[in-house]
């Protein structure tokens, strides 16, 4: 009898959450459209944090250049969904006289795959390095990627340099273009809301994949590597391949998030993919609880949402108190990230919501 009651409770709980999630953008939209935007960006961060969690949390590899995969996914999508390639390369223009206009179901996997490829390229020579060296090398890799994105506009214009790629087409699914407002079954749905549902769906998918990976032979192998690599090897685990797998999978999630970022923004430039971004994502994983999926989601939502809320509050408060803004929101944001990392390591090294106990 109890079991049935429990099942009922679970189903009701599940439905409540589903309704809340579905209604969220409408509620947020009442406060202001910028809040729906913030929600969407937060979801992107959740995807990134979950991807990095596979590398750092599951497999225990510190990657300080994770944002490079985000960048790769974003640029792949950007190149395929904008007129850049046809404008700059005659052969491509000849092959696609009406523009590339590839299906989103092709572009997202391409972004993911390219990112995964870069993950393998980076990981293959470096994954055997010890933890802190790996961190620095991945940091270097992230910077190299940004350097190339910033400079590959001559002699062949691939990335359009510091100006980035713009005029990226919004998402189009089943004939519905995610631009302005769309009429769905008589309801006026703003594009921002459509993006929210798409991002939510992708995020839920990523969560599902992560959970399944965690509770599997692969997940156990990763935890073994993280806990004691020598013992893991002695148990028959091919640690090199497992680490490479973690890297590639984590990278692919970053690539998916990057592609979505690209479509959402409509333009991408190297500025969005600096070291600070990598560190922010790491901060989310560390704060939430490395390896613990709910914790990581919490960390991502907190660190994505809090600075935004702060921005709304901090400026007027300072102007009220001091007559001028002493510490602007950007600086405060950075300070929060730095303090979070130090304080979490000192006082709650397992994060706000750790795995067990």
């Amino acid at each position, binding site marked *: 009898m109890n079991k049935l009651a429990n099942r009922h409770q679970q189903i009701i709980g599940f439905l409540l959450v589903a309704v809340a999630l579905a209604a969220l953008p409408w509620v947020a939209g009442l406060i202001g459209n910028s809040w729906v935007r913030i929600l969407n960006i937060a979801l992107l961060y959740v995807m990134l944090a979950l991807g990095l969690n596979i590398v750092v949390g599951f497999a225990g590899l510190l990657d300080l250049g994770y944002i490079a995969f985000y960048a790769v996914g974003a640029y792949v999508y950007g190149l395929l969904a904008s007129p850049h390639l046809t404008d700059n390369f005659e052969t491509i223009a000849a092959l696609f006289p009406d523009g590339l206009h590839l299906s989103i179901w092709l572009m997202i996997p391409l972004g993911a795959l390219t990112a995964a490829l870069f993950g393998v390229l980076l990981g293959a020579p470096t994954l055997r390095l010890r933890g802190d060296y790996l961190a620095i090398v991945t940091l270097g890799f992230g910077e190299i990627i940004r350097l190339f994105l910033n400079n590959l506009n001559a002699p062949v214009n691939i990335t359009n340099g510091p100006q980035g790629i713009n005029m990226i087409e919004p998402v189009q699914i089943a004939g519905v273009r995610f631009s302005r407002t769309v009429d769905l079954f008589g309801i006026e749905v703003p594009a921002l809301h459509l993006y929210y549902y798409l991002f939510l769906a992708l995020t839920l998918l990523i969560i599902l*994949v992560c959970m*399944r*990976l965690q509770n*599997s*032979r*692969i*997940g*156990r*192998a990763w*935890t*073994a590597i*993280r*806990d*004691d690599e*020598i*013992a*893991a*090897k*002695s*148990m*028959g*685990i*091919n*640690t*090199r391949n497992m680490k490479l*797998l973690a890297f590639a*999978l984590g990278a692919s999630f970053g690539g998916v998030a990057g592609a979505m970022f690209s479509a959402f923004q409509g333009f991408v430039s190297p500025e969005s993919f600096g070291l600070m971004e990598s560190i922010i994502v790491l901060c989310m994983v560390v704060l939430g609880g490395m390896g613990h999926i709910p914790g990581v989601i919490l960390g991502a939502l907190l660190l994505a949402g809090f600075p935004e809320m702060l921005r709304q509050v901090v400026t007027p408060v300072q102007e009220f108190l001091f007559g001028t803004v002493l510490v602007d929101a950007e600086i405060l944001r950075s300070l929060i990230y730095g303090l979070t990392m130090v304080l979490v390591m000192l006082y709650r090294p397992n994060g706000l919501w750790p*795995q*067990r106990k």
Partner: protein
Amino acid sequence: MNAPLFSASNLRKSFGGIAAVNDVSLCIQAGQVIGLIGPNGAGKTTCFNLITGLYTPDAGQLAFKGKPYKPASPHHVAEMGLARTFQNIRLFKSMTALENVAVGMHAKTSQGVLGAILRTPAQRREEIKVQKQAMHWLHYVGIGAYSNHLAGQLSYGDQRRLEIARALASEPALLALDEPAAGMNATEKLKLRELLLQIRHDGKSILLIEHDVKLVMGICDEVTVLDYGKVIAQGTPTQVQQSPAVIEAYLGGLHHAESRE
């Protein structure tokens, strides 16, 4: 004449000019329990590390099930059917006892990323099998009741047994145990002795590093004694106990007397 299950010939390994293992040869027939003893620092664990692929020998050959092997990595050794435990207990502290043993089965299972993500019927079947087998091994070594305890929370003796269960999970032909009785009291050692005999009874061979002379002499078919990296005696327990070189190494001269019992 059957080829031995395992043979090491003329193994040599030096670190910075000092020979930790110097011309060591060893042979294990199927079903035997072989002891490897010697004073601290004699090179026993180094031998283990050479045999299991953690170190590369400077010279010498290794052969398992009749075939020579030169593992590029320890995981090849495990796949071959040679499993080990560690002198300093290397359990996966953040996983439960059950999960630790499940990891031990890694070499014998095959589901990969796609299986994990898609939860195919084959993957689900394998997971059920893994859980069942892991529980079986936990019961086998006598810690079935602690299956959901974190490995780090178990008592010292239970942790040692968990390591053995984890090694058994890969269904090895040869089990290499590095000081499994270290830190155990007399009762625990008796239980360990029974476990080792049971393992041999069930068809596995054992290579045992141990300091407890009684334990070693009681269950080993043959014993190899190392000192300063060299083999100073090799034979049945009785033969070895009577060897003057062994007595000298353990009791006389430059070594401190064994402070354990």
